[in-house]
């Protein structure tokens, strides 16, 4: 059982760090930033992404976001297994934020007093202060606002990192998401020519570690703290019980399958805050893949499977060439099929016989 005092332990350190930086808000740079235009973004839940320009209009600006942290039980598979989730903005993963290089990201992080734990946010896209983690630790009933300059382009993970064992525990309880920093003039292929996408999907992959009872059935707990000791034991075994996209096995299939049309170009941003993964589009490819997610590097071409390192986000651009139902999986197929990491694309359009045709349907083996 986790006590409130343990949960709040990191708070004093965070407060000290903030207090130690009084000059931070009184520099000339601050005045310059004050003149920038501001834009307020309303985040949307994954796999969808808020409206954004692929090529920036005008100069750098301050892009304002608000995320409210919500601790709540969520069902993570068809059997009704429950995770005591910790979420950014109510979703697992947290929403994808999109800005352009040299924009300022200004995030207000709210931790309502209905929560029981202290939380913060570490942006891999940010520079200094443990990615902002040191400046953003908020107790239940507090909020904080952080601003950082998006100096590097690419897709980057953000996650909760409230100190010690709290870090992996909060992350495998769902507290991660991603931010995409686009080049101001948009994405480019390996030859530097502009490329655009018609739609974008954000797939956050999570590994969960749900304790089982003596019969092998998954246990549930009233609060996250009640399950802490048991969950930590499973975590230390390093074998997840669930590996899922968008917070739940089957959350991107059936009614929620992603949709596209033949000829459409889709950008798939894939993040994993904790563990390596290897996305693969069955029957398709990655036309241009930023495997490490950083747009300053030329994209790899024609990939079959791409590797997303734990603690990073990558991006794959693909133009669908055939209609049908596609499965998008973590190509550790045990994780895809048994543990949950499968999504579907439904793609409408005309079939291309030149690319593939069944020359002869199955029939009894011909014997002469």
């Amino acid at each position: 059982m986790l006590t409130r005092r343990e949960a709040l332990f990191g708070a004093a350190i965070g407060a000290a760090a903030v207090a130690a930086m009084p000059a931070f808000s009184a520099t000339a740079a601050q005045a310059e930033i004050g003149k920038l235009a501001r834009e307020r973004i309303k985040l949307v839940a994954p796999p969808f992404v808020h409206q954004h320009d692929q090529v920036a209009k005008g100069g750098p600006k301050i892009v304002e976001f608000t995320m409210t942290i919500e601790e709540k039980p969520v069902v993570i598979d068809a059997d009704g297994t429950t995770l005591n989730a910790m979420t950014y903005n109510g979703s697992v993963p947290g929403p994808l934020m999109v800005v352009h290089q040299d924009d300022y990201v200004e995030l207000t992080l709210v931790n309502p007093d209905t929560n029981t734990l202290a939380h913060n946010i570490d942006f891999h896209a940010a520079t200094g202060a443990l990615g902002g983690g040191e400046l953003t630790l908020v107790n239940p009933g507090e909020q904080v606002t952080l601003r950082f300059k998006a100096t590097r382009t690419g897709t980057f993970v953000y996650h909760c990192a409230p100190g010690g064992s709290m870090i992996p525990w909060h992350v495998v309880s769902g507290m991660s998401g991603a931010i995409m920093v686009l080049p101001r003039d948009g994405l480019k292929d390996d030859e530097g020519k502009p490329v655009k996408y018609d739609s974008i999907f954000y797939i956050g992959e999570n590994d969960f570690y749900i304790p089982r009872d003596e019969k092998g059935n998954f246990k549930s707990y009233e609060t996250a703290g009640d399950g802490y000791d048991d969950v930590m034991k499973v975590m230390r075994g390093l074998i997840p019980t669930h590996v899922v996209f968008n917070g739940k096995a089957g959350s991107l299939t059936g009614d929620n399958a992603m949709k596209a049309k033949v000829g459409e170009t889709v950008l798939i941003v894939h993040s994993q805050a904790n563990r390596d993964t290897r996305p693969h589009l069955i029957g398709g490819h990655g036309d241009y893949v930023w495997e490490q997610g950083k747009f300053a590097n030329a994209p790899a071409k024609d990939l079959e499977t791409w590797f997303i390192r734990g603690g990073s986000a990558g991006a794959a651009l693909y133009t669908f060439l055939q209609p049908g139902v596609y499965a998008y999986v973590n190509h550790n197929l045990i994780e895809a099929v048994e543990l949950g990491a499968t999504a579907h694309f439904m793609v409408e359009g005309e079939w291309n016989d030149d690319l593939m045709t069944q020359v002869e349907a199955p029939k009894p083996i011909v014997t002469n």
Partner: protein
Amino acid sequence: MPLHIPRFASAAVAAVAVPVGLSIQAVGDWGGHRQSYPAAHPLAMTVSLLPGSIVYPMPGEFLKDGRPQRNPRLRQQFDKPLEIMTYQVSAADYADCVAAGGCQPPQEARAIPDDAPVTGVSYLDADAYARWYSEATGDHWRLPSDEEWAFAAAERFTGEFEGVEDDADNPARRWLTSYKAEVALNRRPDPLPRSRGSFGVNSRGLADLSGNVWEWTSTCYVRATLAADGVGVASSIDNCGVHVVEGFHRTYMSNFVSDGKSGGCAVGTPPDNLGFRLVRNQPGWAKRILGRLGII
């Protein structure tokens, strides 16, 4: 007039389950060896259906001119009465077989009621139970064929998700429409087996059909090439390593799979659970007479 004829008639007309007592009485009439069957559990309740017929989509995959076809609708005639269990074999029933060494334990760790259907059983398990139960009761019990199941299920029979759009130039239309049809049913997973009777009774008096437990049949998966008339079969290949499973929808499972969720394919809704019920073969007249005479 033999005793069993009016029983079939009354059961079918009234569309009710045959009470245990009547069922046992009939068994007694036919004779048999029941000494090894545990006295603690009464024999399975059954429903006896009058001869009849149905028009139903055959199971399997059908091709014509190398292209997938809608499953042919054929009239299936049942010339003899069909006696089938009212309920699926229960966890307690199956436990008797395990205790007697006739069956492997089910792959089921969840806490489910004793009178809930046994789940976590493969085709091989169901078949082993039928053999043990036949031995224990002295009657011949077996899994229903797919058409028998459909006949007994009546209005609860739904068949499979067939792609309805047939476009020679675009095979994907079929895949997409089939996927959408399944999505449109909007069936949410319903994992935990419930006490017998929870899913009600159909018009023929069978309980719990097409609830959250799918049922094994004795019918093998088949791929057939249809003749020019679109109904006759020009050639076919059976794969009896895979059997037809019936329930909320029809599907196909490898014989050794006991968890429907992991036995399916990359797309499509998997069965919540796998279980079964059995059919009792009617003994022929010779056996009935010999039974009465106490010879067998």
